[in-house]
């Protein structure tokens, strides 16, 4: 019985259209996939290099800044709690601002390559 049904299915199976056209289209699609894949791999390698460089630069800059601060200690005058600051004086030191700017620069240098890498992964996979 099972074999009869199988035979019936085999006899009445639909025939797909021209296999050559299908194969040609498949070849074109696979070639396109390969070129996208090659571009993707190249970009991943490039971004990995940038990430490594950023990491090393961050370490060097951070180390240099830490060494500089350690070697140049700032002696602050001891102020009583009720001391009034002179007119126009800021409580935020210039070194604190430069530290903040450096953090922002390093953060952006890490953020943008990572974001672009994530976007590419989303597109491809």
């Amino acid at each position, binding site marked *: 019985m099972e074999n009869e049904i*199988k035979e019936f299915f*085999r006899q009445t199976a*639909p*025939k797909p*259209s021209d296999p050559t056209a299908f194969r040609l289209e498949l*070849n074109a*699609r*696979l070639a396109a996939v390969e070129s996208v894949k090659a571009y993707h791999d190249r970009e991943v390698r490039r971004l990995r290099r940038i990430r490594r460089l950023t990491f090393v630069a961050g370490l060097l800059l951070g180390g240099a800044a830490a060494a500089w601060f350690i070697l140049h200690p700032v002696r602050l005058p001891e102020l009583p709690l009720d001391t009034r600051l002179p007119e126009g004086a800021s409580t935020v030191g210039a070194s604190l601002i430069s530290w903040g700017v450096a953090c922002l620069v390093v953060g952006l240098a890490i953020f943008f390559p990572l974001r672009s890498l994530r976007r590419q992964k989303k597109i491809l996979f």
Partner: protein
Amino acid sequence: MTRDEFISLAAAEQESLRRFLLSLCNDAALADDIAQDALVNAYVASASFRGTARFSTWLFRIAYNCFIDRMRGRRLQTAPLDTSAARAVPGPEAADGRFRHEDLHRAIGMLPDKERAALLLFYMEDKPVKEVAEILEMPAGSVRAYLTRGRQHVKEYLEKWKTR
């Protein structure tokens, strides 16, 4: 796996894959589109093919998942039915053969996706139950249940149309 290796492996399965999808969709253009998608997806994922399953099983599973993705949110149209293959049924009883073919494929087209896929893989592609289970990602017992139910449903449809 290189592109040439993949193409030579895929070439051996190409016809049965397209036939399976054509029977599943009843639309030649859509079936070929899904087959192309499946083959491209398989090529992209070919590095992850470990060879624990047969290449054809792995490829059919990807194709079936592509079909499910494509059909998600869109009801499969059972009509108009592609009857071009039916016209090609040879022999002296060509007319009778054509009607039998049309009725059978119309009945199959009315089955739920999993029943239809199980029937087509088992009967048309001659795949063993174990392999059908791997392709449809379900236990072998469920495949047997789908086959029994599918056969019953097809029989009911054919009998109903015969009495009209």
